[in-house]
């Protein structure tokens, strides 16, 4: 399995709205912490080392 880079999430607008709503009312440090927890939770769910390495690489390349 390789990292999916094409559209894979149905109704991503809805997810995006929920993501922002989850952050609402948090200060900057709390938002950073939430994002960190979220990444760890999703990484565990994905459970594929190669996919995660490629995702990290892609995120880093885009800096």
């Amino acid at each position, binding site marked *: 399995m390789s990292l*999916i*880079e*094409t*559209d*894979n*999430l149905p109704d*991503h*607008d809805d997810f*995006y*709205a929920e*993501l*922002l709503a989850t*952050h609402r009312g*948090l200060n*900057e440090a709390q*938002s950073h912490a939430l994002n960190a927890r979220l990444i760890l939770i999703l990484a565990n769910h994905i459970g594929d080392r190669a996919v995660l390495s490629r995702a990290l690489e*892609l995120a880093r*390349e*885009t800096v």
Partner: protein
Amino acid sequence: MPYDYEPFEYAPPPGLKAKEPQHKVVIVGAGPVGLAMAIELSNHGVSSVVLDDNNVVSVGSRAICWSKRSLEIFDRLGIGEQALAKGVTWKVGRTFHRDHEVFNFDLLPEKGHRMPAFVNLQQYYVEQYLVERAQEIDLVDLRFLNKVTAVEQTDDAVHLRIETPDGEYGLAADYLIACDGARSPVRGMMGLEFEGELFEEHFLIADIEMQGNFASERWFWFEPEFHAGQSALLHKQPDNIYRIDLQLGWDTDPDEEKKPEKVIPRIEKVVGHSDFRLDWVSVYTFQCRRLRDFVHGRIIFAGDSAHVVSPFGARGGNSGLQDVDNLGWKLAAVLQGRAPAGLLDSYNRERTHGADENLRNSSRTTRFMTPADGIERIFRDQVLRLAGKVPFARGWVNSGRLSVPCIYPSAAPDNIRMPKATRPGAVALDAPHGNGWLLQNLGGAPRLLAINCAAPDLGLDVLEVEETPFLRERYLGDAAQAFYLIRPDQVVAARWIEPDAQAVRAAIDAMWEGRA
């Protein structure tokens, strides 16, 4: 060429001389929604009087993007060909962030539909075509320079006071439909207020006439260098008129921003030269809100008088036409005694549902374009950053989601082996049919559509067809045959693989009673 705003003829209404008999329907407002409403009612055999305090089409392009569904509705109203012939279709969209293009897309037309996904056409053309069409119809009584000053409702009628250049008169009607826009005077007279999330933003909207071969494309900028921190949109319309939308921010002064000495330099920065003529400028203030209820006894709200949204995503004019589509057959059925007055509750239920979906979508777009400082802005900017690199993120860039009809919640008979896109509550999808098109053949009457089978005789018009690849994809799915009950507004009411006369009869009753 600038549009020629020719005034429509005013004639002194009969009510100035003698009391008019009670009318079936009075429509307040001769904009696209009010005019479409009158023509749609006439399609169902119902007469109406349309009152407007003005006598010209709306000034400036205003609603410009008409969706496939609106074009299908226009077709039934008799102006589909005109709108299609005059309108401009763009296929390529370009999205910029700061000074570089992030990505572009090419919208390939979907095969097997009579109408394209949308056309750009100034609202004044749509109004002109609708007025010309309405004037051909005996059942439509169009009265310009007739201003409603008072509205009162009794058990069996709505009473109006109306001002004209020749004095005042009164009218009574079984029903009043308020299609009088975002600042609806009728809504004000009834003391009703919008509810919901207050979400305010200012946009400068300008039409410019520009010769030359500027591409027929949609260009959208996030935080352009020429307009720091805000967003901008450029669209082509017929007659070499281009529409520019510039987000101004809420803390700007609309009167100041409208001045040509402020507007022209801004536009020069957008198009990169000064070889254009300013045709129209307006500052658009919007809220994302709606009335809690669209039906108040004998007074019914449709279009902007009932719900207002942000301009991105083309949900103002298009959702108003869907209100018309939903209300026309229902009000006709109630007035003609074919259905109980309760059927109108289903207009309220279904169109408030549609309005909520439009409000949700337009609020999300607005939020993407104007993120709050902090984490919202970080996420927004990183979606744009990723979009330049990874295909999935392009779909997440939200500069307006094209208006498509909502799917009304429905518990009607269904079968999961059939395609989801045509489930009960959805608008029937078009497909080639003989030498024409399926939706044209469905028309505006309730229909039984039988594919690969015979329909039982239940007193409704029947359309029996053999399958085609498009019908298989859009209506059959895995099923060998299919049987659809389709409402007059072309919404699927119920569907079966094996029709059972008793179940179909029950679904027909549910349709006339407006049960979900």
